[in-house]
């Protein structure tokens, strides 16, 4: 049974990683803890459910629609809320508080429009068949989530490391002012990052909504809490760290449920986070920056 638990842990870890990739991207570049990411994630799931049930479209269309609509939503949030705050040089806690407001708007707006009840994807969206490898079950959806999260991580890491765009983004992460002086289109790249992060959040929303078969207005909140734990574990703003942190959390949770009991599942996640921070103040995979006077 251990093998099956490990596979379950892998897919759960990839679920967390998928959510955390967008979350960590926006922190890495914009320096904002975007507490509306969970709400954007939920909007993605709703967008896909709505378009798939009303127009009888297949899953890929739902994913595409969620990607684009959440990307546009991310752009809007950046343009209407984060950009004015950047322009005012607001103190660092302020953008975070603003995104709490955005999350309240989105969560309650969706609840007002579609009600608080659980909505579901059309029944035959993904095949229920599961691969059977040496006694280990793996559904097509789990396989898709695992592959997609690894591919996305690889693409993001390569893009950040090897391309001109990635170098520009890393320069901004270091210092937006210096990047601007070097002729980098800082505002444009902020927009691009907001678009990409929110679009990834939307994708994650659809996949995780399918995975847990539950789409409801507050589905993003527990994910947000886990996502925060993941990017802290992995080191904030670090793409590879988001992946490793997600996997770490997935394994910790599944194994604790298997060997300790399901009631303590969340206590294990956050207890571990607490302990890890005490031992390694910048996360498991983060690098410690010493301040020089």
């Amino acid at each position, binding site marked *: 049974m251990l093998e099956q638990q490990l596979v379950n842990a892998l897919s759960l870890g990839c679920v967390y990683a998928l959510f955390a990739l967008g979350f960590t991207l926006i922190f890495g570049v914009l320096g904002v803890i975007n507490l509306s990411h969970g709400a954007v994630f939920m909007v993605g799931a709703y967008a896909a459910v709505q378009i798939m049930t009303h127009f009888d479209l297949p899953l890929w269309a739902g994913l595409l629609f969620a990607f684009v609509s959440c990307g546009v939503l991310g752009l809007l949030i950046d343009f209407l809320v984060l950009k004015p705050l950047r322009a005012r040089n*607001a103190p660092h806690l302020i953008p975070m508080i603003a995104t709490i*407001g955005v999350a*309240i*708007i989105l969560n*309650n707006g969706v609840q007002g429009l579609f009600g608080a009840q659980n909505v579901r994807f059309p029944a035959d969206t993904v095949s229920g068949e599961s691969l059977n490898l040496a006694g280990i079950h793996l559904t097509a959806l789990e396989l898709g989530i695992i592959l997609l999260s690894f591919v996305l991580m690889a693409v993001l890491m390569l893009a950040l490391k090897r391309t001109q765009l990635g170098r520009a983004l890393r320069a901004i992460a270091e210092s937006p002012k210096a990047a601007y002086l070097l002729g980098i289109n800082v505002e444009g790249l902020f927009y691009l990052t907001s678009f990409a992060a929110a679009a990834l959040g939307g994708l994650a929303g659809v996949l995780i909504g399918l995975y847990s078969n539950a789409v409801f207005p507050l589905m993003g909140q527990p994910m947000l809490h886990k996502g*925060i734990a993941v990017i802290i574990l992995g080191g904030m703003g670090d793409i590879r760290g988001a992946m490793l942190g997600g996997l770490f959390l997935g394994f910790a949770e599944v194994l604790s449920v298997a060997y300790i009991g399901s009631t303590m599942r969340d206590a294990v996640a956050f207890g571990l986070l*607490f302990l890890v*921070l005490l031992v390694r103040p910048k996360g498991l995979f983060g690098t410690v920056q010493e301040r020089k006077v």
Partner: protein
Amino acid sequence: MSALENFWSVYSNLVLTLGTNSLLALSIWLTLSCGMLAMANAAFMGIGAYTSAILSMNYGAPFPVAIAAGMAAPALTAFVIGKPTLRLSGVYLAMATLAFGEVVRIVVLNAESLTGGALGLNGIPQATQWWHVLLAVVAVLFALWRLRRSKVGRAFEAIKEDETAAGLMGIDVGGHKMLAFVLGAAIAGLAGVLNAHLTFFIGPNEFGFDRGVDILTMTVLGGINGLTGPVLGGVILTVLPEALRAFGDFRLVVNGVILVLIVLFLPKGIWDPARLRQWFGRKGATA
């Protein structure tokens, strides 16, 4: 007079919640004023609430004893976790304290024999009178006002501005941070005790992540540069959802919009004397 009595019978809970929320906002203001973003206040509030509720329900402890224990227990907890936690800074401290809060919530959830688990504790004696809350707010405000003007308060200020420089000037950075953390926990515990003996019921989910973020929102929205801001923020965020009842299903959407607008137009908080002066100054110039 009867109109007033009528108002009181409908809104007394809301009015007293203003007081407890102001206390919570002040408790996190204290750690912020020492440059620490510690977000365990919801958990400290919960520890205080549960300690006092269990004391008065199971052991028939008089209210003053319950209050004292409800302040001492979170303060002690803060002292124990403060040593390793306060080495962290910035968002890492925030996350460690939030994580600690989640652990507390889940422990409370699972210690069913003592805390009632997910069902919470029901039938806590309603010992909180309106003047208890008023007295608590005034006493805490007075104490914090004295503290700000004392040597300790100036040390907090110095640590907030630049920790390294403060250390080089001979300020005991670790000790002062610990003091702010422990005092903040005691104030949050006091709010928890008063709230528990007011609302008759407490459950573990009242003290979770969202509550922790709420408390921070009140303080930052109000303004962290003085004592007026947190109280104002606590009052506004408590009254706002009630005042927006006319919007029906979408009232919390309006609530969120107002929150974003306040943040956009008053980034230093609602209580921002310099900006108020600037606004009134402009009016004066055109007149």
